[in-house]
């Protein structure tokens, strides 16, 4: 049953916008979802508060479907803990296999960079991710700005209203504007939204 559940999650999974590359020491973080034409599945173990290692799979839904699956290491390069804010810079590198439907697979590399700044009312993030192989070459770039309509306490439901602008190189719709709403409570996190072209956005994340 667990394998079936995980398979379904992989099959329906997505995007990088909710990415939380490194969590607290000892945590597993599972992230999956879909944003526009990109689906992502990520599972990492944070073996220190500044580093995590795990699995990353992506699917690009274009004229020909493209895939990447591999292992990845994430680093928290720097964190600024202010009294009422936090800022982070992350980077990651990975390796695996990438392919295109009907065109075989080849060794591939993946890399990302992320910077974010957050208070209890304001959220901003910049993300860049690259996948490169002989047959697959994609870049995903996004910027997000969000506000919280209220300051949620630790045990309350947190709500965020976020606008994300995302560009995926080589796709039919090069720039997507994505309004979405983010909820989290305890170790559970979900984002729901849609691109302005009507493609659904769903991201889920859990720490355990």
């Amino acid at each position, binding site marked *: 049953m667990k394998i079936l559940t995980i398979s379904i999650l992989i099959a329906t999974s997505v995007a990088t916008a909710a990415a*939380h590359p490194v*969590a*607290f*020491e*000892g*945590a597993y973080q599972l992230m999956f979802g879909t944003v526009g034409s990109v689906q992502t599945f990520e599972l990492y173990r944070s073996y*220190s*508060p500044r580093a995590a290692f795990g699995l990353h799979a992506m699917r690009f839904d274009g004229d020909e479907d493209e895939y990447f699956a591999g292992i990845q290491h994430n680093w*928290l390069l720097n*964190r*600024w*803990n*202010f*009294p*009422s*804010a*936090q800022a982070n810079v992350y980077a990651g590198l990975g390796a695996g296999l990438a392919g295109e439907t009907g065109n075989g697979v080849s060794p591939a590399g993946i890399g990302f960079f992320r910077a974010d700044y*957050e*208070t*209890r009312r304001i959220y901003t993030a910049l993300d860049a991710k690259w996948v490169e192989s002989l047959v697959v070459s994609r870049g995903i770039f996004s910027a997000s700005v969000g506000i919280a309509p209220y*300051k*949620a*306490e*630790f*045990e*309350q439901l*947190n709500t965020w209203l976020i606008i994300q602008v995302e560009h995926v190189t080589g796709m039919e719709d090069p720039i997507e504007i994505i309004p979405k709403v983010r909820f*989290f*409570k*305890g*170790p559970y*996190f979900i984002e729901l939204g849609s691109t302005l072209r009507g493609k659904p956005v769903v991201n889920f994340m859990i*720490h355990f």
Partner: protein
Amino acid sequence: MKILSAISILALSVTIANAAPDRVVTVKTTVNGMVCSFCAQGILAHFKKHPAVSNVYVDLTRKLVLLEERQGKSITDEEITDSIKRSGFEAVKVERLEGSFEQAKAD
């Protein structure tokens, strides 16, 4: 008479000294960077595992982590600071309170 008084004071001191470790202590830690409850789950996870901690409360507004020690057990300031760091945050001040855990939550 003086000897009797001295013995009584000594006996009382020994009693108080022995009783002190059994007092339930509330520890208040001021933490920087704690702006998101999803990101602060590690604080709960780490302190819940500590054998000397019976209760954990995170207050994002006051930027506090409150710990209630188990009777007769103690968590050191270094352990608190380290757990906060391993959760991704920065402890800036650790204080031992006279009042109860529930009182500290309500303050």
